[in-house]
C-alpha cells in the first residue's frame, strides 16, 4: 500500500538499525509520547531489535488511558439517562468507571453509539430532535480540531439538543510534569507526530531548552520510529539538545494554522487531571464561556461528581515512564483487556494492552506470563 509500505521496508529498517548501533556508546532512555508509537513498537518488535543500550519507555499519550475517572463516571451517568443518545469513539466503551463501563450501560438499555467522527454526532442530533445527543469529546491536540468543529457546527445550526462532555489534554504540559519529577529517567523524547501535525513543534523548544533534552518529532511506521530513535541518540551522543523533525512528510514548524484557530475559537486552556498521574496545570482544554450551553456537564448537572480511585495498579508509573507493564504483578493475571484494572490495559494504544496483545516474546517463553489466561 503506497505511502505505508515504504515506511515498513525491511532493508531500510535494517540499515537504520545498524546506523543506531554504530552511534550508541552509552545507555540512553528515550520516551515515545504517543500510544500509537508504543503500539507500533510492540507490533513490529522494534524494542527487540534496538541495541540493549537504547531503552524505550512509554509515555502518557493515550487519550483513553489518561481520561480521568470522574469524566468516565460522568459519561456513565449521562449515558444512562433515557432521553440521551451518547456518542463516543469506540475505544472509550470499555474503559472502566466506578463499577461499570459504557458497554454495560448499553447492555442495560442505554443508547450508546460508536461514531467515527464528532460530526456524525452532530448529524445524530439533527436526526433525533426529541432526544439529547451527547458526544464524549476526548483526546489530545489531534482530535481537538474536529471536536471544536462539531461544537461550531452545532452552534451555527442552532442545535438545542447537542452537547459535549469534554476531556481534552495537551502534550507539552505533560512533558513538563514528567521532566520535573525527581524520579524522571527520560533523556530524550520522540514527540507525537500527529499532535505536531496540528500544533507544529514550536511549543517544544522551551522544553528542550529548559531541561536540556532532545525532542524529535516522530511518526508511527517502523521506519519513522527508528529514524526518530536514530536522531535522538545522535543528539545525545553529541551532547546536543534540540527539537528536530523526523516526520516532515506530515509536520511543519507552525503546524496547521486553521486547526489551531479553530481550537482557539472554541476551547481555552485549563488545568486538568490525568488518570494515573494527577493534576497538571494548564494541561487541558475546556469550552470557552460563549459555548458553555454545549457543555454536557452543566446541562446534566454532573460537574460535582468526584469519585476516588483505589490504589491497585501501577498505570500511573507506567504513564510516566517509571515502570513497564511487565513490572506489574497484576499484568496478565488479574488485569487483562477483558477485565482491565487500569486504563493502560483498555485502549489498543495503552502500553499494557500493547504488551498483552503483541507480547514480549521473551516473557511469553517464561511460563509465569505465558500462562496468563
Amino acid at each position, binding site marked *: 500500500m503506497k505511502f505505508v509500505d515504504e515506511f515498513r521496508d525491511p532493508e531500510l529498517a*535494517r540499515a537504520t538499525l545498524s546506523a543506531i548501533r554504530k552511534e550508541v556508546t552509552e545507555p540512553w532512555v528515550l520516551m515515545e509520547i504517543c500510544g500509537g508509537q508504543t503500539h507500533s513498537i510492540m507490533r513490529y518488535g522494534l524494542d527487540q531489535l534496538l541495541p540493549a543500550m537504547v531503552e524505550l519507555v512509554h509515555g502518557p499519550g493515550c487519550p483513553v488511558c489518561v481520561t480521568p475517572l470522574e469524566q468516565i463516571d460522568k459519561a456513565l451517568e449521562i449515558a444512562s439517562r433515557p432521553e440521551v443518545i451518547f456518542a463516543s469513539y469506540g475505544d472509550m466503551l470499555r474503559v472502566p468507571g466506578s463499577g461499570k463501563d459504557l458497554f454495560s450501560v448499553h447492555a442495560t438499555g442505554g443508547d450508546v453509539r460508536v461514531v467515527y467522527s464528532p460530526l456524525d454526532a452532530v448529524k445524530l442530533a439533527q436526526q433525533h430532535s426529541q432526544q439529547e445527543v451527547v458526544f464524549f469529546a476526548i483526546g489530545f491536540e489531534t482530535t481537538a480540531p474536529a471536536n471544536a468543529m462539531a461544537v461550531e457546527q452545532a452552534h451555527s445550526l442552532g442545535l438545542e439538543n447537542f452537547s459535549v462532555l469534554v476531556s481534552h489534554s495537551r502534550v507539552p504540559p505533560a512533558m513538563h510534569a514528567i521532566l520535573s*519529577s525527581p524520579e524522571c529517567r527520560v533523556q530524550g523524547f520522540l514527540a507525537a507526530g500527529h499532535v505536531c501535525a496540528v500544533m507544529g513543534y514550536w511549543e517544544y523548544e522551551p522544553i528542550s531548552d529548559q531541561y536540556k533534552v532532545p525532542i524529535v518529532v516522530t511518526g508511527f511506521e517502523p521506519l519513522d520510529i527508528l529514524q526518530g530513535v536514530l536522531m535522538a541518540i545522535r543528539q545525545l551522543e553529541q551532547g546536543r539538545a534540540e527539537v528536530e523533525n523526523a516526520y516532515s512528510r506530515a509536520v511543519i514548524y507552525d503546524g496547521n494554522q486553521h486547526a489551531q484557530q479553530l481550537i482557539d475559537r472554541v476551547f481555552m486552556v485549563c488545568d486538568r487531571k490525568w488518570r494515573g498521574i*494527577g*493534576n497538571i496545570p494548564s494541561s487541558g482544554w475546556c469550552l470557552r464561556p460563549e459555548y458553555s450551553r454545549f457543555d454536557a456537564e452543566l446541562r446534566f448537572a454532573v460537574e460535582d461528581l468526584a469519585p476516588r480511585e483505589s490504589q491497585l*495498579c501501577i498505570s500511573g508509573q507506567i504513564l510516566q515512564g517509571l515502570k513497564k507493564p511487565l513490572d506489574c504483578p497484576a499484568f496478565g493475571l488479574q488485569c487483562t483487556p477483558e477485565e482491565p484494572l487500569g486504563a493502560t490495559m483498555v485502549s489498543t494504544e495503552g502500553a499494557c494492552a500493547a504488551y498483552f496483545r503483541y507480547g514480549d516474546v521473551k516473557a511469553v517463553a517464561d511460563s509465569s506470563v505465558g500462562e496468563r489466561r
Partner: protein
Amino acid sequence: MSETIDTVTMEGAVCPVPLQPSEQIMLGHGSGGRLMHRLIESLFLPAFDNPVLRVGNDAGRISIQGDAPLAVSTDAHVVWPLFFPGGDIGRLAVCGTVNDVSMLGADPRFLTASFILEEGVPTGLLRKVVESMQAAAAEAGVEIIAGDTKVVEKGKADGLYITTAGFGTILPGLEIGGDKARPGDRVLLSGPIGDHGIAVLSARGELGFEAQVESDVAPLNHLASAIVSASHGIHVLRDPTRGGVATSLNEIARASQIGIVLEEGSIPVRPAVQSACEMLGFDPLYVANEGKLIAIVAEQEAETVLDAMRGERYGEEATLIGTVTEEPPGRVLMKTLIGSHRVVDELSGEMLPRIC
C-alpha cells in the same frame, strides 16, 4: 509558550477497582473471541458436557449404531445489512454451516433451516433471501430437508434471522480436527483475508467511505474435498470466520498444544482491505472471512496440497503462511518482515459491528 511547572501533584498509583466478570450478556460475548470462549467454557460446556462437545470443533463428530461417522453443525445468522456486496444473509446461512461441516473433512449433504421473521418484512425480500439460499445450496450440492418459521412482533427482531444445521458423512479413517496439528506441519491459507468483514462494514455505510470490496462468502466443501483427496497428511481444516485468522490459529494452537509461527509478508490481503484496515485501525488478521480456510498439513504434503487447492475455484490464491512449532505451546507468533517476533493474540471483545 511559558509553562513551567514547579510542583505536580502526583497521586501515585491511581486506578479503578476491577470490574466484576460481566453479569449480563454483552455484544462482545458474540464476537467469536475470548469473551465468547469464556462463556462457552463457564456456562454451556458444564451444562451440556459430553465427549463430542468437549473436542471443541465447529462441528461435532458422531456415530449412530456403527454407521459411517457424521459431522453435525449448527449456526445462527444475524448479519446486518441483510444484503451486502458479494452476498446476503441467505447465502451466508447456507455457506456458514456447509463450511463448518466440511472442516471435519466431511461431505455435507443435508441442511435444515429455521427462520425468525420480524412482522412487516416484505415477502419479496424474503423470497430473494430464499432464492439465494437455494442457489448456494445448489452450488454446494446440499439439500434443505426440514425447516421452521416463526414470526415475532415488529421491533422484536431486526428483519430476519436464519439458523441452519448441517449433516455430512465423514470418510472412514479420516481424523481431522483442531487438536491434530503437530510440530513441523505447514500452515496453508486458501486466499486473501478480511474481505467479508470489510464488505459488511462498508455496506453499513458507517465508514464514511465505500470500500470496493466484495464479501468472500462461499461454500468451501468442494475445496475441502479436493484437499482431503489430495493427501492423507491433512491434520486441521478451519474456516476463520468471526475473530479472523488470528483467533482461529489461537484456537488450534491451544487445542493442539503447539506453537504457530507466521511469516508477516506471506499473508495475502487485498489492497482495498488493507487500506480500509489502515484507516480504521484494524488488523486484517482479526477481520472475518466467510469463504477462506486454513489447512494445517504434514510438512512433506504442503506442496501437493497447495497444488490441489490452487486447482479449485475458491483456492486459486492459496499460499503457505507459517509453520507449526513445539514452542511456545498454545501461542501464535508472527515473524515480522524486519526480523523481530511478536505475539498474535486472539480477538478479545467486540469492536466490530455484527457481521455474520
